[in-house]
């Protein structure tokens, strides 16, 4: 492989990784706060892409209106799901929450089939995302750096919110101890709602960028990215936002590089994510950034 090709693959891996990372953050935030794996999160990714698609195709909105609007609407759907399917079950055994999350996932996928139709739709990229950029011998299309930069901006905003704002401080407190957070005069329901909103917004952004990278959308398109992003979140140490980002990038780059270096194995591409996951769980069950939880006596 030439150096140019390596750079091309690396760019590709990082852009895929940043998509995994965007989606993984939602898993990890919800887990950090409610100890819930939100199985419906992948389907939020799909909704984000479809809302953006219809914004452009049906309502003739320019992309710079349709995409942000889709992110906002999908964040709203995330909030509704939390309110309707998770909040009423919060005081029950965790298995009820899990079951509800699986149910929401099936509901969204099947509603997608009914409303959007099961046939894949072509997602049209804005023209400026389709320009070929030459890097030495190799070339990438302009959407690759655009994905990376957009994701980086969103990460920066998220890190700012979590670490530098009052509501972010409450989120960090909540992830440690919900009851005591309430004793601080903080409306914990509202903070949980805000976390779902943030996570769903990032997932919607991930879905739109995913559709830009792989411009065919269908109601089940969120399943695989959702699963991979979940693996990324576990790789990074579930509950840890920085870990989710790291895990996402790691998974994206490794996946692309294995295919690039061993083209014969490209058919097993999706299997690598699981191999990495199994190895990690064997040798470092808490993930890259995860804390070792002391056993409570």
């Amino acid at each position, binding site marked *: 492989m030439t150096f140019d090709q390596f750079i091309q693959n690396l760019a590709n891996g990082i852009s895929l990784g940043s998509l995994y990372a965007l989606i993984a953050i939602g898993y990890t935030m919800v887990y950090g706060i409610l100890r819930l794996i939100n199985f419906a999160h992948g389907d939020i990714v799909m909704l984000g892409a479809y809302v953006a698609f219809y914004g452009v195709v049906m309502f003739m909105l320019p992309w710079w209106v349709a995409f942000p609007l889709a992110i906002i609407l999908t964040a709203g759907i995330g909030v509704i799901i939390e309110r309707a399917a998770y909040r009423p079950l919060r005081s029950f055994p965790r298995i009820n929450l899990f079951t509800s999350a699986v149910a929401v996932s099936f509901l969204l996928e099947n509603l997608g089939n009914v409303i959007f139709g099961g046939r894949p739709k072509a997602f049209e990229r804005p023209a400026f995302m389709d320009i070929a950029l030459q890097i030495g011998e190799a070339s990438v299309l302009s959407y690759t750096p655009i994905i990376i930069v957009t994701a980086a901006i969103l990460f920066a905003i998220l890190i700012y919110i979590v670490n530098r704002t*009052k509501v972010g*401080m*409450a989120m*960090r*407190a909540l*992830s*440690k*101890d919900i*009851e*005591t*957070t*309430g*004793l*601080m*005069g*903080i*409306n*914990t329901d509202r903070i949980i709602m805000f976390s779902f909103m943030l996570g769903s917004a990032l997932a919607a952004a991930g879905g739109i960028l995913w559709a830009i990278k792989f411009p065919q959308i269908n109601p089940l398109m969120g399943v695989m990215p959702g699963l991979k992003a979940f693996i990324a979140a576990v790789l990074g140490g579930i509950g840890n936002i920085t870990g989710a980002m790291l895990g996402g990038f790691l998974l994206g780059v490794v996946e692309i590089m294995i295919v690039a270096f061993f083209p014969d194995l490209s058919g097993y591409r999706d299997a690598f994510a699981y191999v990495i996951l199994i190895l990690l769980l064997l040798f470092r069950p808490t993930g890259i950034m995860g804390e070792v939880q002391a056993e409570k006596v």
Partner: protein
Amino acid sequence: MLEIQNLHVFYGGIHALHGISLNVPDEKIIALLGANGAGKSTTLRCIMGIVKPAEGSILLNGESLLGYKSFEVVKKGVAMVPEGRRVFTNLTVYENLSLGAYARKEQDKVRQDIEAVYHLFPRLQERAFQPAGTLSGGEQQMLALGRALMSKPTLLMIDEPSLGLSPLLSQTVLKRLKDLNRDTGQTILLIEQNARAALSIADYAYIMEVGSIRLEGAAADLAKDDQVRQTYLGIH
């Protein structure tokens, strides 16, 4: 300030509180004493809206607290230092203190109040930007207390402040409470297993036993009472 009448609580089938009544007058320190499992923490958790009572009333300055969630009770002027301190170990000392003031409207005064807490507990200022998890048990207790004060409570409730602290440190913490009460007129409801220490700073005390109030009286009288001395203070 706080009036509890005939409070009953059930946990599943267990009758945890059998109709307790107590009264916390303005600017006093009231101690709630008793062994493990007597229902002391349950009483505080009822006041904070964490546990729902089956029967009875809880009035704060004449207004019922029943049916409110913790954050709403805090906004009405009650703060609680939970048992085991429960500081946010992943947040810095400064952030813990700021969180305590989360619900307040005058955020510009918060900075000033954090300074006041630092003045009360200088150790916290030295460690302001360390994660609270790196503090010692005594320092965490001071932080938990400072954090509760940040909401400017009219009623401060403290669950077992001396739990897990050395006798010397417990005394320091209790002395701080006494100072606070004397200097600012802070009303305090104090839960303790260490009856002797609690009686030394309280004005009035209730002694609980398996979900009921067994005895009550002025702290000074209880400390002299033979039965109390034998049963709760271990003096024969």
